[in-house]
């Protein structure tokens, strides 16, 4: 029996512990890869170089100095690793699912957990930020093993509620992050795209790498409704009556043009845009991360 199956959301749902979920997802993913994306960068490497004026004297390796009487500093460890931030949207709309095992939020959490697991394994420091109308929780990035437990326990206890302000929150995050980082945003992006684009540009402007995991429910992508339906928006409680059968093609056009808009914008800004829906396997998301990481070195 392979662990491939754990890449399927409907299977992973049966596992209640988030740490196990993350582990299964990552193991299933790694087993499925033929050529290792890990080649070409080392997680164990540490290097010394001669001290040059301007370096932080705190970084001087005094053991080397004791042996050789020369100033060497060991700063390479920090530069070879990437600091990742998992930015999770807590909006009420993320709690939606129509006929899938996982809601968008569950899917985002699983994915975030898996990425967190993977990054900690790579000894990359991982931080966690959640937001709705503003940033709600944040965990500073660390690469220690026990940090995984902290992140996962926080993720497991998150509950989506209320309206959201993605653009404002991303702007806030951009201001928060001092260090160049890999910002992985998990959101359904169901808001006006223009302010979001501005915030994303802001993040890029500050030197952050951004992966935008655009998570939609399978129903939001395929519109499998029939008959006369009154749709209600969960955050604003707005209602619209529509004949779903006849409207399907229009809706699909609208949603694909929305995704295309993000795709184009992200491509122009060097942002990795990963359109997902809750029926898709996790490997796509993970592969996207790894490809993105490799591209950085």
């Amino acid at each position, binding site marked *: 029996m392979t662990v491939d199956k754990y890449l399927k959301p409907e299977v992973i749902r049966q596992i209640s512990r988030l740490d196990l979920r993350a582990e299964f997802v990552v193991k299933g993913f790694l087993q499925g890869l033929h050529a290792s994306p890990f080649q070409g960068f080392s997680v164990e490497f540490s290097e010394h170089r001669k001290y040059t004026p301007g370096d932080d004297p705190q970084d001087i390796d005094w053991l080397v100095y004791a042996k050789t009487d020369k100033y060497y500093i060991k700063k390479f460890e920090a530069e070879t690793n990437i600091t990742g931030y998992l930015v999770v949207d807590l909006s009420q709309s993320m709690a939606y699912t129509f006929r899938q095992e996982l809601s968008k939020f569950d899917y985002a959490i699983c994915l975030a957990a898996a990425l967190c697991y993977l990054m900690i394994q790579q000894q990359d420091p991982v931080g966690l930020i959640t937001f709705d109308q503003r940033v709600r929780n944040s965990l500073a990035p660390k690469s220690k093993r026990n940090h995984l437990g902290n992140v996962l326990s926080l993720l497991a206890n998150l509950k989506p509620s209320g309206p959201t302000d993605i653009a404002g929150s991303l702007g806030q995050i951009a201001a928060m992050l001092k260090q160049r980082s890999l910002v992985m945003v998990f959101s359904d992006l*169901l808001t006006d795209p223009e302010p979001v684009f501005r915030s994303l540009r802001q993040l890029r402007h500050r030197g952050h790498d951004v992966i935008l995991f655009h998570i939609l429910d399978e129903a939001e992508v395929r519109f499998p409704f*029939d008959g006369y339906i009154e*749709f209600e*928006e969960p955050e604003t409680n*707005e209602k619209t009556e*529509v*004949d779903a059968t*006849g*409207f399907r093609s229009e809706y699909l056009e*609208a949603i694909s043009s929305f995704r295309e808009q993000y795709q184009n914008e992200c491509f122009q800004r060097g942002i990795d845009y990963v359109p997902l829906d809750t029926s898709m396997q996790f490997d796509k998301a993970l592969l996207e991360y790894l490809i993105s990481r490799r591209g950085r070195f």
Partner: protein
Amino acid sequence: MTFVNVSLLAGAALVAIPIVLHLILRQRPKPMVFPALRFIQQRHETNRRRLKLRHWLLLLLRCALIAILALLLASPSVASTLLASWILVAGIAVLLLVVICLIVVATLYQRSLILRGILSALALALFVCGSLIVVMSWSRGTGGTIGDQEAPVSAALIFDVAPRMLYRHQNQTRLEQSQEIASWLLSQLPSSSEIMVVDTRQGVPIFLSDLGAAQKQTAALQVAGSTRNLPETVSAVVQSLEQSLHERREVYVFSDLSREAWKDAAANIMSDMLSTNQNVHLFVIDVGVSETVNFGLGEIELAGQSLATNSPLRIRTELIHTGPGGKREVELRMERPTAPPPIRQDGKLLLPTARIADRANCELGLDGVQSLEFQTRLAELGTYHGSVKVLGTDGLEVDDIRFFTVEVRDARRVLIASGVGATPLFVSEALAPREYRESRQARFQCDEISLQELEQVDLSAYAAVCLLDPTPLTPNAWQHLVAYVAEGRGLGVFLGRNARPVREFMEHAVTELFPIQLRPLVIHRPEGEIFLAAQDMSHPVLAKFRAAGMSVPWHASPVFRHWAVEEIDGKAQVIATYNNNRPAIIEQSLGRGRVLITTTPWSDAANRSEPWNLLPVGSQSWPFLVLTNEMMLYLVADGNIRLNFHAGEKVVLSERFATEPDRYRMFTPDGTWEDLHQIAGDFVIRYTEDSGNYRLVSEDGSQKRGFSVNYSLASTDLQRIDQENLDQLFGDSSYKLVRTPSEIQREQGETRMGSEFYPYLALLLVVVLGLEHTLANRFYRHREA
């Protein structure tokens, strides 16, 4: 356009159901949470408009579905197949137009090729369909395509009930065969049809309440003596059918196709009526027999109907044969006036027995005709009934016997009052020759007096008074005569040389008798170039001269003098003129009596100096003899006594004498009797449909009268009309000549078809149903991505 079930059209009101469902009972939306609502809202408006359009289209189709279904069940139809075809073509043209519009729209919006292909194929199919129907309509004329045989019709059954329909062939009369076919026909007519049963007697055709009534009326049909011709009856029926409920109208004529039945001046009217009423289909059902074998008697000719005692009775008739020839014996039977009257016994009428008066044996060849003459002497006073009968049996029995009635009377008494110098001998000898007087055969008994004695004589004993060459009478005497004539007697005034002063004839009291203004002028032509010249012989007085015509030797009896008539009253009538066109004999009616005036005397002897005329003594004086007799018969009102009639004629028997009873019991030939009452001096019998002797007997049995009725020769003539003549008779209008029920059924099928829209509506219903289904499925199908 008519509908079989008009009430079902109300079903079209059910179109309200989809409309109500659409407008009022709108579908309740299913509530559902959906975060990506923004994308729905973006496109919602255009979608809503398109959806609305689709919904309206669907609603329209569903309404059309119900409306078409209602129309289909109501079974609309038009009477004319041609009209039906054109309506159909119009419908197809509208559909074709819609499809062409759809093709244009599909091309403009660059819809799929398949859609455009399907629409083009549909357009082509519609075009071909329409063209085919047009071509078929042209080629078939009024012929049809598809139709419902069971739609109700307005049917009229016309029966020829002339006596010849009693012709028996294969132990069935023509009328019985008509009834048998009609009974079958009625039983197979569609239910709720309107039916008219008409025979050729007079009467207004009306629709009967139901099939049962029609069956009863058909079964009760009887032969009638007086009938209309068929073209006239058909015209009347076609006119009546114009008010019928149903568009499909059928006329069935049961006829033996005899020439007489179809001979009519109304044939043109019938042809025109049928041409203008194209929706009336005429079926002529031939129940006749092509090879008839029959002996029949022609019309009876009697020498006179009112005879003097002992005068001979001559009866002429013809034996007419159709067929290969044969022998027959013909009998003359007479009933004596003294025979006991008919008696009712056990509900039946026992008629007096008739004795055989004469017999004749005849042998006829192929379609032969033989004249017959019987003679007998009638010695007793009273009414004689008789019959001439062909012995033996043949196809048609009604024409084997002819009936007649004659009256034998005493000599009528005539008073001849002569003026000075007038010779009454000419008139009295003309009326009652001595030989006849001696043998008691004279029709008249003449009493001669002088003019002066007139006032002393009781005139009531005389049937007529003749004034020969009178002088003007006293006013009293004139009044006396006016009263006498007004009672119903006759007066003859033969003016001559004594009529002076002429104005006294025109005095007030006398104008009633003299409706003329005499000029005090005598036309005098001693050369003898004036003579009586009766050219117009229409008056009964001149009837006897009609046969001789122009060969009557009037010129042999010249008139030298006659009175000139200046002016004639409107009521008076000139019977005869001289060859100078001046009036010779003038008639005037007064009360119930008559007056005849001549402008030259009837009493001038030839040896008299300057005689006014040589009428009685000319070289050929037989016209004088006949004219005098006829004038007198006319005056005593015997000349126009008619005792023999054709069936259907109104019979009027005048009162003969003052002591005549005012009530008679009449025994009719069919064995029934009825009481006749005198009305204003006449006995009037209106219903004379049966042929035979009609016997009138007074209550005490002492007085007997009677008359006879025969079928006209035309009504028993079996000669058939041929197909060519029948075609000519109908002209442009079409008719179907059929003989058997199966032929009727086949022809009915051909004429009834083609006016129904049922199949087309059914086709349209299927198309609309298919469209509705497709559209609904297209709108609401589950799209599996």
